[in-house]
């Protein structure tokens, strides 16, 4: 009888020609997808030359997009993207996404259908864990790792212990997957899942869209995790069938698989969460945040700038104006999201509210460009990290929240509960049978929000 295994163990075993693997073992796993951007890949290109390597292991398994400092923010950045572009040409890599077709890699790769269940994927970027939402093993690595994998198609991994999160119930209205993951990180800490896989189950996850799920796996690294992972289901399959004809293997954890810890979370009990400076684990329910005036509101990043995020932000901002003295910056995560938002009229909402809209870029999330913060400036951001110096000056203060909370705070000029801005349409209260001035029953609430 084979040892019962988690989905992570099964994928790593299958990619290292093993029947089973155990946490703590070192395996050399074949890699199905290598994602490259202009910060961590140029050093790897150099390292390959240092090893006397002239050809990548398999150009068809590589995806390349510039994303961190695009459009080039200075001469040195221009040199980095040029180095990347020249290398792509020299290696004959077809899946290269130039400016205009580019995107933040962790958002672009799923959008194009490049990540599939059962795959192993790496990138020289810590938020590679995002791709685990598809039932893949995806982990961030360094440039030396990128050089090794581009050369050999394999990479060493210590098989991680797995922490299981059972998320039951349903997220209340105005509460999103970002609030859930900020809550989880606040409970376990920024190193609560150090070296571990974070595996998610439960009705709250099952009812989420792929975009909402990706926000959760994206932030695995903010708890120190090696990967965040969810089993592929019909929602995954439907998302992929619109994007790719490739076949794939769906792995699921055995019922009696071993977990180093199990956490049970009732999503229904959650409220909007804001992570206070300067750790992602400083999450507080919105009611405990107090009055925090802001200088900037930033809606962007691989965490929360997909089309659903922009729709939520637009819903909050429609017909309203950004508060005096506040800068609101909207950065769609990919060129595809940008075009979709344009078609849906979301940019009109943002523009009339007084926001600026950028092309896709990692931008100010890492203090690169498009909204870098000055000394003691305060920003509420839909991004993933609020470390000291992350978005600019070391004395700037960053609060992390959902796109709804960021958008509502931009309107208010200080951090607020977005639910006050996600008002129910009044005319439908009558249809739902809610007496004027009365509080709706849960069933009536369900109806009112079910638009």
């Amino acid at each position: 009888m084979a040892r019962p295994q988690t989905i992570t163990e099964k994928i790593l075993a299958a990619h290292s020609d093993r029947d089973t693997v155990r946490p703590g073992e070192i395996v050399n796993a074949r890699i199905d997808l290598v994602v490259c951007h202009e910060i961590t890949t140029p050093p790897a290109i150099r390292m390959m030359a240092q090893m006397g390597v002239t050809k990548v292991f398999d150009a068809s398994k590589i995806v390349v997009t510039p994303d961190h400092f695009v459009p080039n923010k200075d001469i040195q950045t221009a040199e980095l993207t040029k180095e990347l572009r020249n290398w792509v040409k020299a290696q004959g890599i077809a899946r290269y996404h130039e400016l205009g077709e580019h995107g933040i890699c962790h958002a672009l790769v799923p959008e194009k259908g490049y990540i599939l269940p059962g795959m192993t994927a790496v990138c020289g970027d810590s938020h590679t864990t995002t791709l685990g939402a598809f039932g893949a093993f995806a982990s961030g690595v360094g440039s030396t790792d990128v050089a090794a994998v581009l050369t050999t198609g394999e990479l060493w991994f210590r098989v991680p212990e797995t922490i299981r999160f059972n998320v039951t119930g349903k997220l209340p209205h105005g509460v999103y997957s970002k609030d859930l993951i900020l809550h989880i990180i606040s409970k376990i800490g920024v190193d609560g899942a150090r070296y571990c896989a974070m595996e998610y189950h439960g009705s709250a996850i099952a009812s989420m869209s792929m975009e909402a799920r990706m926000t959760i796996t994206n932030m695995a690294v903010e708890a120190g995790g090696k990967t965040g992972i969810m089993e592929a289901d019909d929602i995954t399959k439907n998302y992929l069938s619109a994007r790719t004809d490739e076949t794939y293997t769906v792995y699921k954890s055995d019922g009696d698989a071993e977990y180093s810890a199990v956490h049970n979370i009732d999503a229904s009990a959650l409220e909007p969460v804001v992570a206070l400076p300067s750790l992602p684990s400083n999450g507080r329910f919105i009611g405990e945040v107090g009055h925090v005036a802001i200088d900037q509101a930033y809606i962007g990043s691989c965490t929360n700038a997909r089309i659903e995020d922009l729709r939520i932000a637009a819903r909050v901002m429609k017909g309203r104006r950004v508060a005096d003295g506040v800068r609101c910056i909207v950065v769609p995560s990919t060129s595809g999201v940008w075009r979709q938002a344009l078609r849906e009229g979301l940019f009109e909402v943002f523009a009339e509210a007084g926001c600026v809209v950028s092309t896709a870029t990692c931008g100010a999330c890492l203090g690169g460009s498009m909204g870098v913060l000055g000394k003691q400036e305060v920003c509420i951001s839909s991004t993933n990290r609020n470390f000291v110096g992350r978005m600019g000056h070391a004395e700037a203060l960053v609060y992390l929240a959902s796109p709804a909370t960021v958008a509502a705070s931009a309107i208010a000029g200080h951090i607020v509960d977005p639910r006050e801005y996600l008002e129910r349409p009044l005319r439908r209260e009558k249809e739902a049978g809610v007496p004027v001035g009365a509080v709706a029953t849960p069933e009536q609430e369900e109806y009112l929000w079910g638009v």
Partner: protein
Amino acid sequence: MGSVVQGGVIRGHAHVYPRAHINTDEIIPARYLNTHDHAELAKHAMEDIDPGFVSRVKQGDILVGGEDFGCGSSREHAVWSLRTAGISCVIASNFARIFFRNSLNNGFLSIECAGFADKAKNGDDLEVDLAKGVIRNHTQGTEHIFVALTPFVQEMIAAGGLLPMVAKKRGTVYNPAIAAAKPDVSVAQLKTVRVVS
């Protein structure tokens, strides 16, 4: 370059940062990621946590950190900046995984020793004895056992890092001298390099 392990012993003076979660944005801020030139990065090591660090650090010194050292981004630039600034190894209670991975891949030692940062003082004369698995604090006259390196990591460290190990397996030679090339190296230059190697 630091991180040269001679006779399995590393000796240097301590720079102590006992706080937990010292992250890659503090070790090397993203505003300097527009280059991967190690010497340039080294000028800004630890800048956002200790602007005086680079001017004080001497070749071979040892950085001592608290829990979850190096959390945050995957930027290997954090390891390169510390090593090129002169640091020979980092001792911390424990490490964030990508920093740990990056350091070992570079043949640069990350030593796990719980609570060491709470006892060490800036300037202490430290010695890491890899064979015996102990850290000696000569200033304080104390000895501390550290978490043993796995056989795989020992093999990688002995090889000088992941790339020399990969090159050896492929029957090529890893030539770090090529690292001297400037970041704006052109494809033509890379081709020349390939011919040479």
